[in-house]
């Protein structure tokens, strides 16, 4: 799930009270000496929420298109969202997204990061799916929407479409991506196995080996690869 390792102080969720969490988030901002002003709100939103590509380019584009409707208040909500994402406060992420951003134009980048939390809290599968479909259409350079749709198709039991989406994610993910990349290859391998069984064994092994090339410490991939190579008849679940 989206979270960026930083040295900023984190919040430990203390209660489900929205206002309480908002105060705590603002305390984190104050502790980091963040003052959102009319002349720096865009920069802060980009630096906090989307420091890396391709997210940064997309958020910059969104800001440029909707600049007349955004501003200091919007940027504060973005920074608060990022703090909740760092803290992995699932419920607060969803509640804050629903409350704070309904006043603004829909942002596919926020949707792609928040949808997973919507799924994991309320289980609102179809809402999350629509968010990923929107993101897949609007964020043509992003692997993540396709990865998430691949995963959703797998959960639905539609293995062929899952592999198609994972293939799209593979085509888009950067060769040096060590965060999402390993998961894309690992999950594509699993679904290939679900679809074709042992006849896909060599393709599955190739996917697992690529996952481990990107992240040598990926424990699930290590276990699965060892088992798949070691036994004639084995399933990865």
């Amino acid at each position, binding site marked *: 799930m989206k979270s960026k390792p930083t040295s900023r102080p984190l919040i430990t969720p203390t209660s489900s009270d929205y206002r309480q969490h908002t105060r705590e988030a603002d305390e984190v901002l104050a502790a980091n000496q963040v003052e959102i002003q009319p002349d720096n709100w865009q920069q802060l939103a980009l630096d906090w929420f989307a420091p890396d590509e391709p997210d940064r380019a997309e958020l910059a584009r969104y800001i440029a298109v909707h600049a007349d409707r955004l501003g200091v208040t919007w940027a504060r909500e973005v920074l608060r969202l990022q703090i909740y994402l760092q803290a992995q406060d*699932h*419920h607060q992420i969803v509640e804050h997204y629903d409350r704070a951003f309904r006043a603004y134009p829909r942002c596919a980048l926020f949707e792609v990061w928040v949808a997973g939390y*919507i*799924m*994991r*809290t*309320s*289980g*609102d*599968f*179809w809402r999350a*799916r629509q968010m990923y479909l929107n993101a897949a259409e609007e964020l043509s350079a992003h692997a993540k929407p396709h990865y998430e749709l691949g995963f959703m*198709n*797998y*959960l*639905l*039991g*539609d*293995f062929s*479409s899952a592999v198609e989406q994972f293939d799209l994610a593979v085509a888009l993910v950067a060769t040096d991506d060590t965060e999402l990349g390993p998961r894309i290859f690992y999950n594509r391998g699993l679904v290939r196995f*679900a679809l074709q*069984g042992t006849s896909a064994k060599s393709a599955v092994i190739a996917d697992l080996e690529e996952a481990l090339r990107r992240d040598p410490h990926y424990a699930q991939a290590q276990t699965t690869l060892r088992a798949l190579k070691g036994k004639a008849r084995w*399933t*990865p*679940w």
Partner: protein
Amino acid sequence: MVNDQPHLEVRQRAYPTRAAAERSALMDLEFAVNQSGNKGEPNLAEIAWTTGDIKRALADLPAIVPAHIRREFQRLLQPWPAGRYVEAYRRSGGILNLFTPAWGAQQDEVWSTMSAKWQATVFTDAPARRMALMDLEQQWNTTPHPFFAGLTPAQVMIGGGPLEAKLADEFLTQLDRTLAKQNFVGEGAALIKTLMLLRGWQVEPQRGGQTPWQIIVAERNDLLLRRDRALANRPV
């Protein structure tokens, strides 16, 4: 069809969501209408198809069966429509679909693509347009649907049989043990875990070499054939 001695069986099971627990009750009723008697007597569904008389099919239900269950049986035994089997959206879909969050025409990406294409087509006349729509609806009825875990709407409508009932029981028992040991941040996380377990389970070959998915599809196809034969043999 039903055991001679009515009895009450209480089972406690863990489900990831309330909706799945409720749908499980519907799944059991679908199994029940396809359950033949101990001596090979026709099941509720066969009686309804053969006679065209739902009341007759339900006549032998024990008095202990509550009214709301009888109404559910009645709904399940209604004749299928000539057009699209939209009632499939309200069926359980069996163990393969038990945990899929409820969906309908609004979420049906397959039907919306099909109907958009039909709407964009120019037909010679209104009857041709209507015929094309009827063909399209039949196509939808008999095409594996990605949101039904690859079952066709017709396979969903027919419900599961005794083999699927046994497989479902095995999976749900295994699931119960798994869910009891874990904590989840929300209902959704439990649902995701359940679906991952289900999809792995459904492709794992059983003792006979077939996977649960293969067994379930074969049984539902057999039930569909039996329905066709029963309807064909119905007295005019």
